[in-house]
Every structure is written in structure tokens, then in C-alpha cells.
């Protein structure tokens, strides 16, 4: 949840109630750390948005985009008639600040296509190959969207649907990237471990990486067995049915079930024989850490203690763990210990699970990388003292990949991306705090490892003739001569090299020959002949190999998990290897050079100016038995980058013709998200009949007009301070009938000045029905006074604290404390009761100016998924959860009345990740909680757990 949402929520609450400070919300912040000076590069088909620091990259991206466009135009047999907005960021950390989408952008998102304005947003990660892949991937979405809409339009059908996600994403992969070793690994694993999901059940893995890869595989299969044109026909025939399975059947003359029989048999026939000559990691290696995603192990030895530190996501938060190696070897259920929790604090906002490694110095210092504010930072953790001893932040680099200590512990080599997007090697001198660039070119240099003698750095890079096909080879960087020398040369990938402690051997992972495995080479300076030997022979893959004394520790992929495993005696394993390949090669081709768009293709580069276009336009007419008919419209406009937004609200509540002019309700607001301080201001004029839930309940007529200003400053992703002020003129009339009956006139005029300040913290981790870990906190202070007539004058205090104690992977104890306090003249009343707060009592049946509430809930999983198969299709009820709860609280005006409570149990269903259906059964605790009610109460509600 972003600041934007908070401000929007604030906006709508302030438009409805002068006492705006009574409303609040949680949520994390999308912090605009960086000031981007946006420019636009116009090419034949694209408007490319970039900032000057990355101009070269933008031109390379422009070339790749135009190249992809031409390829896709042929593949789709379709052209896109509008200009395509392509927004580039030079790093993922910059990309995470985009306002094109209102939500937070997770680390795993490599780019996205936004449907409303057709915007494509792509970060650079240092690899030109990946950049090309993501550009093509997103452009497939653009083309598909355009083509499908065109087809539906030709047949006069609503343009309200797309093919299913497996097809959409599968095609985006299939037409943007070759079938690589990673895709092969996932499919092999799925087949061998029997979790391949048939097309007819694809909903079971909706939105997962497996679905992407299965989709890609299925389309590859269709292309190879039926012809590539059949993929096009699946789109051309899209108009033939609302049900894509019918379209599929009309195109391939097979339904899903028949097709599943065919392609699954085919992949089994292909992959089962692999078991004859290759192994699964679990078959031949010892497990160190199982369960979850565990990567980047690093070996630590202190006296007799042998430990592995690693980055893992075992609970939802990515964190650093340690495990005693020998204990783990002796006991497969031995659990690792949490060292540092990530993604909960400002300092450790994110560990880059698949990108950044861990490194331990000879002086027992663990270095690791986290996102910390605007850039990545390197933290130094003293393993024995168990504390962070230093944190290094760099102005020159944005994101940091892998790091490695020099043997003297005074320097570190790191791979990092600067603001231009260039991914190079740097040496950081800890004592002088100086960062020196080792490489400085367009090539992507990664995974450096410093030799024990301190003279050489081995690293992987795409600086080969095969680099433009996404292949990474190994190189030595000689620190004395500054020369770069090939270690490997080939159309394969070589990653994460590590020197042995004596510097005479090197292990690395490579997909040479197919699957990614661990290889070893002995470094022989006296002979020109060198060879590499295959140490592991897995069907799936091995990552991040490291030395653990004479043993090999690595990350193995199996059963769609990353486990840390061990091979005893690495040299024995390599000596017995039959797979030996020479490393004496001839570099016979020039290194690839990136193309940039130039000449006629590059039309012009301009500074970005905000041009607003429609986001939402909605009109509505509503009829209420009490308030009559109201009609109106809401329009929202924003600029292309989503930084600035205008909202217009207009509706009329007139009940007779002579009320039309006086019953116009208008609000205009502007929301700015461009800078770190988000702000919103606006004016409004509301009038109409209102119903006040005060006692006695009454109707009144109110005219309000005024303006407001709201500011929100995110201190970090997890914390923010918000301020607001509003000035509004309110005129309230009570009907004559009421005056005649009650003989009182509650009409009043007021000029309200309302100010509020609030602090919000939120680092909660959400499960399918609500938070499971972390905490949320909000405190708001507000003061509202009638500065003209002194008819109203009150203050508000809101305190809301929620804490979630994790008891298991999907089990948590949640607690909440509310203290709300309004006091003064015309202070508004709070409402309580219902499933949202004090359960067991009718919704909003309890009213008062002051309240306290505590809720306690044990959340636990009941059923992960119920699938009902009907002739017309399947219905899935995923994530069915249970809860045991106990609530207590009270609400009162001036005199404390009684303490109320309830206890019971409930069931929750997640409905399409949009909303949660909650059903509670329990007993009220009545009479100052002295006795349970007779019978039971039953309540249902649509909404997330607190």
C-alpha cells in the first residue's frame, strides 16, 4: 500500500467528513528517493522515457525495441497503430520507484505492461541479453493485446477479455527468449518429480513461474508438432468462443484433455531416460538445508566449528541464516538459526535472494548486501560478536551484486550497477573508504572472487562473442597488469567461480552440456593445457558452489525448491569424473558490440512534459429510499509516468428541480507523487441531506465547501509521517418538522479548521487471509475547531497497534489494541460492533466518543485448496483458513458503561485474492463479561483479517 493510496483515502474521507482526522490507514510506502529528470526519445514506433544518466542505455534499448517490434510484427502478422510508451529504468531499485503502477513492485518483477494506457515499464539489470528478453516479452503483451482487441472489434465483440494467463505469459516467453537451461531445468524437475500440471488444471498454478515455463513449453510443443501458425490461429480464432478451451479445440481439433495426454506423454518420454545417466540432487548428495528457497551459501570455520551461512526465504521474509554443518549432516531435520531478519527494517529493506551473495573474511566478518534506502548498502556483521559493525553506502553505485573479500580483509571486490545502468567490477578499500572501478564498459561483469594470493580476481562476464546470446564465460582480472584473460570460451554459461583456499583450483557452475552443474578446474600456471571436470551430474541444476574444507557445498534445485547440499570430498568426485573438457581454446571471433539507435531511426529526444490522459471515467446513478436519486461522475487523469494526478468528482443530489443548482457536489483535487514528499490539495463543495448517527438520530441538510492540503513523507518503506490541514465552511439545517416536534433547532454555521498529524508503521507479512508476521502501528492526533463561530471544537487521538506472532509457516497469533478518543464540542462518535472489530455485536451498533478494543486471534490453515469439478469447468476454493478469537472492548461518551467481549471460532476463504469471506461463530461475553450469551452468534463479512 503506497502513500498514494493513503492520500487518496484521505482525500475521499475529507471530502465526506470535516472531521477527517478520524480516518487512517496502514500500508507500506513507495519512496521516491531519486529525482529523475525524464526525457523522451522518439523512434519510429516508440516513445522511450529515460533520464540523462542512462541515455546510452536508452538508445541501446531503443534499438532492441525496434528490432523486437519488426520481429513481432511478422510473428503476429499484425502491426500496432499507436505509439508505444516504453519507460526505462537503469536499475531495479529505480524501477521500484515507478508510479505507473500504484502498487509496490516486488524484486522478482522484471518489467510489466500496463493495459489502461498501454505503457511498458522495464528496468535494466546489467545484462543486455536480459534487457532484450524483457523488452521482447513485454512487447509480445502489447502485440497480443492489440491483436486480440482488433479481432474482437472486427467481429463486433466487446474487447473485454484476453486468452488465459498460461497462454499470455507462455507466448511472451516463447516469442521473446530461446528455450534455455533454466527453462529446461524447471520442466525436467516437474516431470521427474511428478508435479507437471496439465493444461486442463492450469488454474492450480495460476501466476506462478512454473505456469510461465509450462506455458512456454506447451507453445513450443504446439509449434514443433502442429506448426507455428497454429499459435497465431489460436489468436485469430479467439472470437469463436468465450471459452478458450473451445477456441483451442476449434484450432487444434483436440480438447485440453486430449492434448494433455499427448504432450505429457511426449515430455515423459523425453525426460525419463535422463535418469539412466544423471541424478537428482537428493539421490547422491547430503542435505544441509531443506524446505523453502535457500541460496548463496558461504562456509565459515572457527576452531572446530563448521558452519554454513546462507540467504533463505523460509518464512516469507528473506533473511540470513546459519547452520552447523556437521550437525546438519548428522540430522537431516536439523533446523538453521536465524541470524538477521530482512524485509522488516529500514536497514535491511530487502536481501537480493537471487542476486547478491554473502562473503566471510578471514577475520570472521560476514559481508552482505541489502537495499537500504535509495541504494544498496554493504553491511559487515561480526559473526562471533553477533552484531553489525559497519555499514557502507555508496553514492556512485545503485545496486550491488556479489562481493568477495581480499585475503587481508582490507578490501572487497564487488559487482555493481551505477546510475547509467553499467554493470562493472569495483574494488572497495575499507580503510580509506574508496571505491575504485576495475572495469568500465557495456559488458555485464558478475560474481567476482578474489584469489587467496590477492593478485587475481576471477569473474563471469558476457564480454565474449557469445555474450549477445546471453552467454557468460569466466575471466581472470590481473590486478598487477589490469589485464583481463579468458578462462573459458564457449557458447555456454559459467557462473559463480570460487577459488580453493590454496588458490590452485576453481569451482564454478556451468550449463555446459545441458543442465547446470558444478565443475572444477585445476589452475596450472606451468602448462598451457587446462581442463574442467564435471563434479556433479544432475538432471536439474546446481548453483552457488563453494568449498567447505575439502567438501563441496552448493544449492541444488529439486522439487521446485532450492536446497543447500553437500558432496563429500570434492577432489575425489572430480577425479572420478568422466566428463572432462579442455580449456585450451582459440578466441576466434570478435566480442559483441551493442547497437544503438541512430540516424533516421532516432528521430528526436525531448524533455518530458506532463500530458494528462484518462485513467478512470465513471458515471453512476444511485437511488436510495431515504436520500433519493443521485447522479454523478468521477474522472481521474494522470500523466504518462503516473506522477501527477487530477481527480474530478461531480454529482447532484437534487430531489426537485428547484434544488438542482444548490445540490451540486463538486470536488477537484491534485495528487503529486513525483517527490519523496507526496502531497495532495483540492477544493470541494458538498451539499445534501445527511443522516447523523448521533443520538437522537436525525436528518439534516448540510452545505460544506472548503479546501485541504495533505502531505505524506515516507521515512522509509515501512514508516511515514502524514500531515493534513483543511478549512471548510459548514452550514447545517435541521428540518422544520424536527424543530416542531422536538422544539429544538440544531442548525448551526461553522468555519472548521482541522489539522492532523499521524505516524504509521507497517512491516507486516500477509498470508492469504490477512497478516501473519510483523507489526502495524498508527497514531494520529487531530484538532478541529470552528474558528469563526466557536460552534464546534474537539480533538481526536487514535492509537492502533497490531502485532503478529509467527507460530509456524502459516500459523500466527495476532493481537490488536485500539484506543480512540474524541472529545470536545460536536466531537464525532465512533462506531463499533461487527466482524471488523468487536465480533458478536451487530455492525456499528455501539457508538461513543471514546473506545478501547483488544482483539486476539489464532490464525491457522484448515484446507489449502478445494477443487470442485463440474461439467462446465472447475471451481477452486483456495486458502481456507481457520481462526480462534477473543475480543474485548468498550465504547462510551462521557461515562464508562460496561466492558463487552466475545469469543469463538471462524473460517475464512480467500476469493480470488481480491477479498476474503469470513464467517464467525461464537458467544458474546455480556454483563461486564461475567457470562456468556445464551445460544450462539453467527456473523459473516467480506474483508481481510485485521
Amino acid at each position: 500500500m503506497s502513500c498514494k493510496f493513503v492520500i487518496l483515502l484521505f482525500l475521499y474521507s475529507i471530502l465526506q467528513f470535516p472531521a477527517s482526522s478520524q480516518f487512517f490507514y496502514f500500508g507500506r510506502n513507495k519512496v521516491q528517493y531519486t529525482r529523475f529528470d525524464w526525457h523522451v526519445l522518439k523512434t519510429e514506433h516508440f516513445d522511450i522515457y529515460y533520464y540523462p544518466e542512462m541515455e546510452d542505455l536508452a538508445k541501446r534499448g531503443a534499438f532492441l525495441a525496434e528490432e523486437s517490434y519488426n520481429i513481432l510484427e511478422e510473428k503476429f502478422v499484425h502491426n500496432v497503430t499507436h505509439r508505444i510508451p516504453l519507460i526505462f529504468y537503469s536499475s531495479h531499485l529505480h524501477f521500484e520507484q515507478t508510479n505507473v503502477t500504484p502498487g509496490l513492485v516486488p524484486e522478482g518483477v522484471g518489467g510489466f505492461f500496463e493495459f489502461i494506457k498501454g505503457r511498458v515499464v522495464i528496468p535494466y539489470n546489467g545484462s543486455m541479453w536480459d534487457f532484450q528478453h524483457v523488452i521482447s516479452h513485454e512487447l509480445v503483451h502489447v502485440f497480443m493485446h492489440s491483436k486480440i482487441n482488433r479481432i474482437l472489434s472486427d467481429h463486433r465483440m466487446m474487447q473485454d477479455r484476453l486468452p488465459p494467463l498460461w497462454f499470455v505469459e507462455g507466448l511472451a516467453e516463447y516469442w521473446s527468449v530461446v528455450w534455455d537451461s533454466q527453462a529446461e531445468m524447471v520442466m525436467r524437475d516437474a516431470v521427474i518429480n511428478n508435479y507437471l500440471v496439465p493444461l486442463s488444471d492450469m488454474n492450480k498454478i495460476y501466476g506462478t513461474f512454473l505456469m510461465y515455463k509450462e506455458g512456454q513449453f506447451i507453445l513450443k510443443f504446439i509449434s514443433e508438432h502442429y506448426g507455428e501458425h497454429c499459435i497465431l490461429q489460436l489468436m485469430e480464432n479467439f472470437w469463436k468462443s468465450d471459452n478458450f478451451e473451445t477456441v483451442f479445440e476449434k484450432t487444434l481439433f483436440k480438447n485440453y484433455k486430449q492434448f494433455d495426454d499427448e504432450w505429457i506423454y511426449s515430455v515423459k518420454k523425453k525426460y525419463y531416460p535422463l535418469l539412466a545417466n544423471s541424478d537428482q540432487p537428493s539421490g547422491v548428495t547430503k542435505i544441509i538445508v531443506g524446505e523453502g528457497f535457500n541460496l548463496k551459501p558461504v562456509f565459515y570455520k572457527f576452531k572446530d566449528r563448521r558452519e554454513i551461512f546462507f540467504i533463505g526465504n523460509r518464512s516469507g521474509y528473506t533473511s540470513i541464516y546459519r547452520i552447523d554443518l556437521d550437525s546438519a549432516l548428522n540430522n537431516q531435520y536439523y533446523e538453521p538459526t536465524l541470524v538477521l531478519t530482512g524485509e522488516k527494517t529500514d536497514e535491511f529493506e530487502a536481501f537480493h535472494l537471487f542476486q547478491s551473495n554473502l562473503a566471510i573474511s578471514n577475520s570472521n566478518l560476514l559481508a552482505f548486501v541489502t537495499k537500504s534506502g535509495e541504494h544498496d548498502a554493504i553491511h559487515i556483521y561480526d559473526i562471533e560478536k553477533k552484531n553489525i559493525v559497519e555499514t557502507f553506502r555508496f553514492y556512485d553505485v545503485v545496486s550491488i551484486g556479489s562481493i568477495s573479500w581480499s585475503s587481508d580483509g582490507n578490501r572487497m571486490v564487488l559487482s555493481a550497477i551505477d546510475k547509467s545502468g553499467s554493470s562493472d567490477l569495483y574494488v572497495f578499500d575499507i580503510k580509506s573508504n574508496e571505491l575504485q572501478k576495475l572495469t568500465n564498459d557495456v559488458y555485464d561483469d558478475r560474481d567476482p572472487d578474489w584469489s587467496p594470493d590477492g593478485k587475481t580476481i576471477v569473474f563471469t562476464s558476457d564480454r565474449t562473442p557469445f555474450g549477445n546470446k546471453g552467454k557468460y564465460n569466466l575471466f581472470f582480472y590481473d590486478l598487477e597488469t589490469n589485464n583481463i584473460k579468458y578462462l573459458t570460451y564457449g557458447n555456454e554459461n559459467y557462473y559463480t567461480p570460487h577459488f580453493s583456499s590454496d588458490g590452485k583450483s576453481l569451482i564454478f557452475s556451468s550449463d555446459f552440456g545441458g543442465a547446470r552443474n558444478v565443475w572444477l578446474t585445476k589452475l596450472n600456471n606451468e602448462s598451457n593445457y587446462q581442463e574442467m571436470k564435471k563434479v556433479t551430474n544432475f538432471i536439474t541444476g546446481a548453483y552457488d558452489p563453494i568449498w567447505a574444507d575439502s567438501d563441496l557445498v552448493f544449492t541444488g534445485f529439486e522439487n521446485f525448491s532450492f536446497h543447500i547440499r553437500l558432496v563429500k570430498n570434492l577432489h575425489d568426485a572430480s577425479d572420478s569424473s568422466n566428463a572432462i573438457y579442455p580449456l585450451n581454446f582459440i578466441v576466434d571471433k570478435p566480442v559483441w558490440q551493442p547497437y544503438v539507435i541512430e540516424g533516421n531511426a532516432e528521430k528526436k529526444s525531448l524533455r518530458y512534459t506532463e500530458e494528462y490522459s484518462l485513467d478512470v471515467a465513471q458515471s453512476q446513478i444511485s437511488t436510495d429510499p431515504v436520500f433519493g436519486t443521485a447522479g454523478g461522475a468521477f474522472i481521474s487523469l494522470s500523466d504518462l509516468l503516473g506522477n501527477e494526478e487530477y481527480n474530478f468528482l461531480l454529482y447532484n443530489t437534487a430531489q426537485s428541480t428547484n434544488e438542482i443548482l444548490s445540490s451540486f457536489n463538486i470536488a477537484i483535487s491534485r495528487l503529486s507523487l513525483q517527490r519523496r514528499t507526496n502531497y495532495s490539495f483540492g477544493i470541494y463543495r458538498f451539499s445534501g441531506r445527511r443522516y447523523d448517527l448521533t443520538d437522537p438520530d436525525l436528518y439534516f441538510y448540510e452545505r460544506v465547501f472548503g479546501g485541504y492540503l495533505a502531505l505524506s513523507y515516507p521515512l522509509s518503506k515501512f514508516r511515514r509521517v502524514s500531515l493534513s490541514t483543511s478549512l471548510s465552511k459548514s452550514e447545517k439545517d435541521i428540518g422544520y418538522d424536527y424543530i416542531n416536534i422536538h422544539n429544538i433547532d440544531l442548525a448551526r454555521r461553522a468555519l472548521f479548521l482541522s489539522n492532523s498529524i499521524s505516524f504509521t508503521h507497517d512491516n507486516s507479512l500477509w498470508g492469504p487471509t490477512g497478516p501473519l508476521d510483523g507489526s502495524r502501528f498508527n497514531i494520529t492526533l487531530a484538532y478541529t475547531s470552528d474558528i469563526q463561530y466557536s460552534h464546534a471544537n474537539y480533538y481526536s487521538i487514535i492509537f492502533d497497534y497490531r502485532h503478529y506472532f509467527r507460530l509456524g509457516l502459516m500459523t500466527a497469533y495476532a493481537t490488536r489494541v485500539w484506543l480512540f478518543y474524541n472529545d470536545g464540542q460536536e466531537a464525532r462518535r465512533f462506531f463499533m460492533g461487527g466482524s471488523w472489530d468487536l465480533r458478536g455485536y451487530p455492525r456499528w451498533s455501539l457508538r461513543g466518543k471514546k473506545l478501547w478494543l483488544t482483539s486476539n486471534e489464532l490464525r491457522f490453515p484448515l484446507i489449502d485448496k478445494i477443487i470442485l469439478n463440474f461439467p462446465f469447468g472447475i471451481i477452486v476454493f483456495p486458502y481456507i483458513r481457520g481462526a480462534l478469537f477473543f475480543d474485548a472492548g468498550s465504547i462510551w461518551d462521557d461515562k464508562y458503561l460496561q466492558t463487552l467481549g466475545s469469543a469463538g471460532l471462524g473460517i475464512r476463504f480467500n476469493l480470488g485474492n481480491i477479498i476474503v469471506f469470513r464467517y464467525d461463530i461464537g458467544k458474546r461475553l455480556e454483563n461486564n463479561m461475567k457470562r456468556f450469551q445464551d445460544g450462539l452468534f453467527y456473523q459473516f463479512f467480506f474483508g481481510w483479517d485485521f
Partner: protein
Amino acid sequence: MCRFWAIVFLVLINGCSRLIIKKIPAYLPSDLSISQNDIGRTNSTNFEISPPLSVIWNYTASGGFGTFPASHVDDIICVGDLNGEINLLNIKTGKSLGSKKFGSTIIGTPLIDGDNLYVALSNDENTLNSYNLLKGAVNWRLALGEIETSPLIIGEKICVTTLTGKLICVEKFRGQIVWTFDPPIPQILKICHSSPASDGNLIVYSCEGGYIFALNLSDGKLSWQTNIGSSIISSPAIYQNRVFIGSLDSSFYSFDLSTGTQIWKRSLGSSVYTSQAVSNKYVFVSTVGKSLYCLSFKDGEIIWEKRMKGLILSPPLLSGKFLYIASTDKCLSVVDVDNGKFVWQFKTEDRIKSIPLIVPGRLFLFLENRNIIALQPVGDSR
């Protein structure tokens, strides 16, 4: 109650639409409308129209258009659209002479023959229909399967290919099936998007599996078949005892009509999705790579190649010394057939994916925005 009347109203405006003309369109042997009389599907017309042209009227249809949406007879053009509606328009004024919704998508060319209209329907209906334009009533309706191609009228027969790969010959007056050819190959290989072409004796069509079949028109017996080893989406053309066809393997082929022997094959660098225009000297074909080729009729040598700005999704149309070619950059280009030079270009308001139609003194364009545009030579007041 309101709902009832709404339904009644909808039935009245939809179900009761009738397509009636007052006189039988005059058929002149010299009339060469695209699909009706050019049984060889050469995409060439005897009517010459010289650019520059100017717009004289336009008409908005109810849906988008297929590749061959219209035919012409007398002073009428008959247009079928993807929304399943047939429109008869006066070629001079653009006034509608009548329209009728046939209930399902019309992808192929609707044909007028005498007082009858022949329409093939796709998807839900899957029928070949004969409709009497004088009576405004259906003569016959045959459920043949899904049809996404244009029927071919040859004498008293009407032949049509189905999506499932059958070629069916029907007696056009009574609607009786004369013969059916169903290739004995797996279903996935015989999916058919290819309209048949004929020389009056043999009838030829192709399937996605790369097969080309030549049958005796009289009895539907297979005369020869060949497989080029790559998918074929486009329709063949027959001219001077030759069969011409392009394929998705980026090649263009010429076969001997009598024997099926390959005469020549030309690699064009990109897939061929559209059918070709053929004259006694040249064969004109476009690829998805935005190139328009003029090949030698005799040996397939490339005479010239023209690179267009947009994709070419509509087949070229030959009219005398001019070749009319529409592209998705919203442009109709007129090219000199001998040297490939642009003679004239006309920008349109939307993409063109359908072949133009030329009748005496008029050229019609069928735009993606559902507009039919009529053009005539500048200064021509006919």
C-alpha cells in the same frame, strides 16, 4: 412486460430483415468480378482504372472484413462482413440496396449468381446458403461444417472447402451435394484456410499440412496431390495450366496443373500468408516481411522487389499495367507492374487487410474501421 416488448422489438429489427432486389442483376461475360468469374483466382481484373483516384462515397458496414469480402455484378457490390451481415450497395451512389444478417461470421466472398446469393458461414452456423434475392427467401441451406474460405461457382456447381479440409461440390440450384473429397490424412494436417481455384476441369486447393490436392471437377476424384513440407494458409491460383501458391516456409511455388510436377520454387525470405496476382508474364506476391515481389511467370526469377512501410495482409490486385496493393500503414499503393515503381499512393483512415475491388470506373477499399470507400479516377464523372 418491458422485457417482452424489448425482445419483440429486437426480433422485428433483426429477424425480419430481408434482402430483396427488384431485378435480376445483369451479367455480362466481360464482367470480371474478383471471385465470381475468375475461377482461377488470379486476382486480376480486366477493368483498368488509372490513378489518381478520389473518394466519392463511403459506407459503414456492421463488422470488419475478411480478406476477400466483396464481389461485383452489374451495378451492385455484395459485401459480407465478420459480423455476419451481407450488404448490397449501389456502386455509383453507395446507397444500400438491402442488408441481411445471416447469423454467423462471413469470412469468404459472398457471390451473386443470377437472382441467387451464395454465402458461406463460419463458426456457429457452419452452412453454405443459397438465398433468392428476388423473393427474399432462403433457397437451401447445407450444413457442411465450418467454412472460412470463399466458394467457387463453376457452371452449375458451387464448390467450397471446409475448415476440416473437405472440398465439397454442390449443385447450385437444388443444393444437392454432388461429391465430397475428404483427404485421408490426420485432421490437424488438413485444416483448410485455402479457397479452391479451377480451370474448369480440375479444381485445386491446399491444406495447412502443406498438401495440395487437384481433383477432377466432374467427379471429385483425386487427380494428383503433393506436399511441400510446410504449412499453407493462402489460396492457390490457376493460370495457363499452372498452379501458383505460397507457403509459410517463405517459398513460392509453381506446379504443372495437369501433373502436379513442381516447375519452380522461389525463396522469398519471409512467410507468405496472402494469395497472389497472376498475369501471363508475372506473378505478384507479398510476404509478411513487408516485401512485394514480382516474379517471372516462366521461371520464378525475381523481376523486382518492393519494400513497403507496413505489413501487407491483403493480396495484390492486378489491373492492367497497375498493381494495387494495400498495407497496414493505412496506405493503398499503386505500382507499375513492369518496374515496381510507385505510381500513386492513397492514405486511408485505418488499416486495410482486404483485397480492393475494381469494377468499371470504381475502386473499393475495405477498411479495418468497417468503412467501405469508393474511389473513382479524378475527373471521371460516371
